């Protein structure tokens, strides 16, 4: 990757190959393990407390950062769109807890263990505040969980917006990175990103975001959010690797779809759209309609979602009849490692296992 100051951003955005992630919303249970996995690895440093490079919220809902879908950025008809910055509160804050006051100061039940915002206030919003809320009306209430991260876009508006050319795609794998030595904290990238996946580090005065665990990826270990997901929702690998599940789900079966394709950023995280339980009619009889209105899913994943859902339904119907379905078998992934497109190394084995302990 070479920076050519006399050239255009085109050089920074070039990538020979592209890593991609597929997240299966039928398998996501909103457990937040990916969030914890990411947090403990990357954002326990000074100035990163409020960041959730990986985040999961309930849909319908405000999302994370709060109302990101209404904060602008991205492209329309190829033109960059204005955006606004996210606040600390939007980014979910970093609640403080009063263990010592409650447990050690002799106040008895006069003190209550409770959260305060990073600035010491009683919170009225925070990360995942609308957890499990969902939509619809009883008995047809519904919800699903939407995990989000940096989309490592093929047309990243952050990269285009950076005045110091600190943002680039890695040529070898398409990971979008913010050079922490070059970033000057102008935050045009935050405004430009329609997914609001970039966070400001107020201590170091730089912008930071998901790095797709490139230090792991370089050692052939899948990113932490992908590998640590207990729901086995994630497939990972090179989009052009015809053996990889991401290739098959995105390019061959075309059931995995980008979030908000209308943002025009060509994101490289794709979603298997969610099913939902069958709805009841006014008398309480079961209908053949799923509870989540397809129109709502169209708002998220574009018109292609109808085709995706129909194909998923057809393939499952084969399984119910005892017939084979390659698509269902991919989504099942009996062998967990098959999900990761060759990024299947273990994340450093303990002392007694192969490889010995090492740093």
């Amino acid at each position, binding site marked *: *990757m070479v*920076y*050519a100051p006399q050239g255009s951003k085109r050089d920074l955005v070039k990538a020979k190959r592209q890593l991609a992630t597929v997240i*299966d919303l*039928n398998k996501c*249970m*909103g457990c937040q393990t990916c*969030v914890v*996995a990411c947090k*403990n*690895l990357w954002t*326990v*440093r*000074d100035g990163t407390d409020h960041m959730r490079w990986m985040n999961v919220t309930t849909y319908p809902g405000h999302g994370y950062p709060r109302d990101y879908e209404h904060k602008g950025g991205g492209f329309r008809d190829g033109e960059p769109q204005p955006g606004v910055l996210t606040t600390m509160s939007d980014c979910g804050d970093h*609640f403080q*807890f009063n*263990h*010592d006051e*409650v*447990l050690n100061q002799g*106040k*008895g039940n006069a003190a209550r263990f*409770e959260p305060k915002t990073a600035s010491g206030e*009683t919170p009225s919003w*925070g990360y*995942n505040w609308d957890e*499990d*809320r*969902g939509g*619809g*009306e*009883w008995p047809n*209430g519904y*919800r*699903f969980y939407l995990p989000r991260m940096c989309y490592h876009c093929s047309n990243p508006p952050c990269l285009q917006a950076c005045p110091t050319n600190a943002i680039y795609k890695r040529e070898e794998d398409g990971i979008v990175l913010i050079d*922490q030595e*070059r970033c000057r904290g102008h935050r045009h990238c935050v405004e430009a990103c329609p997914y609001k996946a970039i966070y400001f580090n107020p201590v*170091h005065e730089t912008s930071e975001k998901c790095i797709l665990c490139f230090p*792991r990826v370089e050692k052939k270990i899948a990113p932490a959010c992908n*590998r*640590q*997901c*207990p*729901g*086995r929702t994630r497939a990972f690998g090179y989009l052009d690797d015809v053996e990889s599940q991401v290739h098959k789900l995105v390019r061959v079966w075309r059931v995995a779809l980008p979030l908000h394709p209308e943002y025009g950023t060509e994101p490289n995280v794709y979603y298997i759209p*969610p*099913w939902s*339980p069958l709805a009841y009619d006014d008398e309480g009889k*079961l209908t053949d309609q799923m509870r989540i209105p397809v129109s709502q899913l169209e708002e998220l994943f574009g018109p292609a979602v109808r085709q995706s859902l129909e194909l998923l339904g057809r393939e499952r119907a084969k*399984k119910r009849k*005892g017939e084979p379905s390659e698509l269902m078998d991919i*989504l*099942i992934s009996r*062998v*967990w*490692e098959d999900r990761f497109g060759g990024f299947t190394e273990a*994340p*450093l084995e*303990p002392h007694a296992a192969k490889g010995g*302990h090492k740093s």
Partner: protein
Amino acid sequence: MATNEIETLPKAGTTRRGFLALGAKSTVALALCELAPGLNAAFVGEVLAGTRAIAYAGWEDIYRKEWQWDKVTWGSHTNACSPGTCLFHVYTRNGLVWREEQAARTKASNPKYTDYNPLGCQKGCAFHTSLYSGERVKYPLKRVGERGEGKWQRISWDEALTAVADAILDAHQRGGTSSFVLDGPHVHAGNVASAATFRFMESLNGVITDHNMQIGDTFIGSLITLGKMQVGYTPDNFFDAQLVVMTHANWSYTAPALYHFLTEARYNGTEIAILAPDANTTTHAADIHIPVKVGTDAAFWLAACQVMIETGSFNAGFISEQTDLPLLVHTKTRRFLRSAEVDGGREDQLYFYDKKSGRIASAPRGTLRHDFDPALDGEYTVTLRDGAKATVTPVFALLRRQLDQRYRPEQAQELSGVHASVIRDMAAKIASRRTCAYIGFSSGKHYHGDLMERSLLLAMALSGNVGKPGTGIAIWSFPADGISMLAGMERPIAQGGMAAGAEYVQALARELAAEDPEITEELVHIEMMKRMSRRLGHSPSAFWFYNHVGYDKLWNRREWQDPAMPRSFGDYMKEAQAKGWWDGLVLPPPGKPPEVLMYIGNNPLRRVRSGNVQYPTELFPKVKTIFTVETRLSSSAMYCDYVLPAAWYYEKQDMTLSMTASPYISLIEKATEPVGEAMEEWRIYGRLLKTIAERAAERGVESFVDRFGQSHRYADLYHHYTLGGAIEDHDAAVREMVAVKVATGIFPRDYSYDQFRRDGTVTLHGMGVTFQKHAVANEFDPKKPFYSLRWHTEEKVPYPTYARRMQFYIDHEWFLEVGEELPVHKGIPPIGGNYPFRITSGHPRISINSVHLANPQLNRLHRGQPVMFINDADAAALGIADSEMVRVYNDVGEFEIMVSLQACVAPKQVIVYYWEPYQFRGWQNFDGVLVGMPKAIHFAGGYEQLRYFYMHGSPHASVDRGVRVGVEKLSRGVA
């Protein structure tokens, strides 16, 4: 307050990086700024001139260096949850654990099924933060203020152990051994720690109140029907099912590591149905959500049974062989026809009417195999030995009549709110497809949970969905031999430690066979457990609560119990005791409260219903000394006089238990030294026993006499506790536990501790050698999905019930009296008073019991405080908006809580997943309004399966689902 502050660890508001910079100048630089030297001006000039290019990759080392460690070890988090067997890599740097990650070393049983990887959830992945969290206990603490006040003095281990030893010796001298009580120890502390706890208590002949009968993870309906409850399957069994019906469970919260088996089976063609009042957070993995009104499950299941029988779609062959449905009952007395009255034979010899021979035939007790053609309908006249004529009819005929009269789908729709068409549809599916049911832990929290389980099991039996792949029910099952052997052996395995137990079982089998030649192996093992429970001072918690914790004041309110019961709770209890059903189990005796109360792995103020009110007001004032061996300051630890700091996971050697739900056993290694002065439990108890011996000697007291009249020398206790000096710490205990697991077939033959250290995790290979092996009644083959009860369905081994069959008809006098001889639906009685909302509860998403409730990282994944979920429309009617505070109340108490609106909550239902009392204003926990009113007829005994042994049977004091509450907006609004 300096007494319990973290001195070696970061304080609140200081990041770990800041701490490391302070603590070790040479530490790995972690901050981006430290590696961002700034740009060299000359270099920038060259770049701008186009004569040099910038290589971007160099700065990337900043993040690469984050991915470096001093040490990686194995870790897990023992039995705080089910499965609780997840293997993790634990990453240590500079003497601190920085993160953990699932090791993902599990394989599928065979290639047709999915593997278990990565196996581990958000709690496991955040656990290291608990080690260094503000609620961690790091030093021995002595209370210097009022109980619960939180005024502590840091003291030395010697001071703490001396004080506790003196208290125990005082108790022995003043009140005898039963005045030292360990209240409801859960296995949170770990397997080794649990074995140590049991050894310690057994050494001192103390009393252990039964934790399982406190938390209600018990399945009385299953005990009544199957004679056991520890049955289960591996989750890959879902792949062999065509239909899964999950109820009383919410796996997305409680079993995230196994949840994928649901979604993957669904992709594989299995239909998933969830039966629950609310569309819980697992519902979106389901095809069908069956929204029963709170507490009406039995009506749904019984109507499904009615449909199966009416449409003739039930499996007559199966029920004739495996169940009591063909057994004959007197139409007049509603009692079984018994051999004692027919020919002077056994009281428990029951009869079919054989259509082939046209006469009654003795139902075999030693096998389920028979060549009769039992009638399922009709009435028959029998001549009794006294010459009297009696009319008898099969149970099935009574059942059919009752179902037709009371549980047609339209009637069930009225009761349950589920449309009759849905019931018919589900009944047809269950009858025609391989169906497995999953019953979670909520049924044990229902007043009439037993009736729900009995009804569900009836549907499974009628459809023949038992004892074959893709069928059955899962409750929970595991081989606990590691704990029980290590707790009970006199000598290590290598010195023949298991021989005494084996000889005891053989002698017992001979003794029982002399009375009943058709006794089964399973019944022998159950009898052994009954005797062991009495020997070890296990006490069913209902007695404990009633006699010592003031629950008599709550539970004797007749208006709150089933109106069909003619006597009060206390009268049932006394009658049961008078009949001798509970001899040797009512400990400590009424009127003799404990002198010393101990806690480990229990937080009764959080988990015992109304415990946050009852314990501090009714029990604690009567107790001289309360101490706990704890890792964290729970709400209950706040009331202790002494807090002894225990090492936690990653700070000591241990291993996990294996549930069939997750058939692996994982190693936990000591990655770091314990924080502060925390110590591993095996050593704590050892030192305490030595101190007791020293203090006794100083008093000139040589020995004590146990409940059975035997004398024990204090000076011998340590020798006994350590198996003759062989096991003095966790490392030695883990090695011994490996030996136990090899000897009992739970581990592969010839497996070794060294191999375990290399592998980190072992696939379960067997179900051990005790009663649990018989409970599941199937060989565990690691190459296949596991399911239970095959020995009954294929080998025709009798069930351990009175009728020696799956028993749906209970002719015990108390059951007949309240109309529960057959499964019926009964509404939840108005426990707590009559109020418009029904409260339900369960495990929260981010904590296993209360272990993680005060963990900051996990609390930052949600609102960080208690919330109550309520339906949008109900909230609107009360003028309540999201995030506002409400007051929730009933006749018993009240609490304040923030509301969270949800479309998926049923009308007039409110849901509060549990929290620590100290998370509520005034520590008025939501548990305070729940009462925990047990069902008094569960004191019934004298009837084979109506029995108690440790963790099994007796009224469970955790009934809370559907307790009625009122809700009103707090005038001061937002918190």
